[in-house]
């Protein structure tokens, strides 16, 4: 097989496979346990306090980081997007900062959320500070037993 033909074949297979995989990633609204991962944060991680909680610029910096890295999936006002759930749901807003930081660091790789440890630790805390500053939005999906852990 000639290289250009092989290359085209490879591209076609890749597009088909990735399309199929993307199709499997259902809309987050169809997943009742979308926030369950927050409850899996280890106790030590949950108890970590945000070192930038009182930094006056942390939320503003976090907003820019959110726009750059998170808004694509979670929506520009964090109210949920095509790929990611609302981060203004009570499950997130009432979760400890340490649990959100842990989730950002580890991602939910099997469910499509990448790890964000690429961002230095202070930037992840700035993101957490921004998310916490948003507060609970009125419209959010119903809480489930698994996701209603503190």
């Amino acid at each position, binding site marked *: 097989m000639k*290289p250009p033909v*092989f*290359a085209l074949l*490879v*591209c076609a297979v*890749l*597009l088909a*496979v*990735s*399309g199929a*995989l*993307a*199709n499997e*990633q259902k809309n987050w609204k169809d997943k009742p346990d979308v926030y369950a991962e927050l409850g899996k944060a280890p106790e030590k991680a949950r108890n970590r306090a945000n070192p930038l909680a009182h930094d006056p*610029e942390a939320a*503003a*910096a*976090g907003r*820019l*980081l959110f*726009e*750059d*890295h998170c*808004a*694509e999936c979670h929506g520009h006002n964090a109210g949920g997007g*095509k*790929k990611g759930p609302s981060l203004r749901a009570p499950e997130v807003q009432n979760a400890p900062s340490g649990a959100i930081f842990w989730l950002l*660091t*580890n*991602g*939910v*790789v*099997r*469910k*499509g*959320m*990448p*790890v964000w*440890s*690429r*961002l*230095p*630790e*202070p*930037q992840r805390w*700035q993101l957490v500070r921004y998310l916490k500053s948003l507060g609970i939005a009125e419209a959010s999906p119903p809480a489930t037993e698994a996701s209603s852990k503190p």
Partner: protein
Amino acid sequence: MRLVRCSSFALGLLFLTFGTSIRSSSAQESPYFVTYDHYLEEPRNLEVEYFSTFGTQRGGNNFHSYWTEFEYGATAWWTTEFYLDAQTTFHDSTVFSGFKWENRFRPLQHEHWINPIIYVEYEDINGTDKTLKDIVGHDVEAEFLEPNAETRREHKREVELKLILSSTVKGWNISENIISEKNLSNEPWEFGYALGVSRPLSLKASAKRCSFCRQNFVAGVEMYGGLGDRYSFGLKDTAHYLAPAVAWNLPSGWTLRLSPGFGLNDNSHQFLLRWGVSREINDFGGMVRRLLGAKS
């Protein structure tokens, strides 16, 4: 030859035009050219990258090799990438070297002290390849002396496996790549390594959007080289390089990289200057799906 050069320019132009009219976000790319860390492409995003290497050649003509990468995040645990390589040897010719298809898989769900990534690559290239991106076995400077007219007749189909180990501690990324490569004809397994250390100049983000903020710059250093083959494993007759590197992640979504590299022994090219430009296209997979009529 002119056709290849024109095609490269056309591809570059297309990339620039296309890249400026689509959604993208500020990337957070590492400065590495050779070493891989454990961060994969975000799902459904496509990163288009152009890289160049200028290399000196003792006893022969200097060269400029260049390649384009299309890196796609199939899932959060699988990134697939397609390369097209070409090179110009001064006072000789410009030739298309071939293509590579690589896949990186993340086996573990969570972050650990050391994060492994499995890398599998298939290469279909000719002997003119001078990207010096995968230095393995006894790849030494003297092998690059032959004119393109001769080396282009050599056809190589190779499989490359890498174990990528990477850690991020207090803003520092430390990556180690253990490389093995097998020419699918009757040749032995060859081995190599790549090491990289990098860190953003500032760990905190600025509260204002800015191009020249320290957090946008990531500086580091890479070291890479060959480790012989199955029958002669070790440092004898191998080439090694040390290369400081810097990446500038612009708020517009573009990333620029620069890396001067220095050969560490007489088997190495004395100087390699690498540079690159890349841009991430958000939700490329979704765009393709919508193009094909699927609901997003």
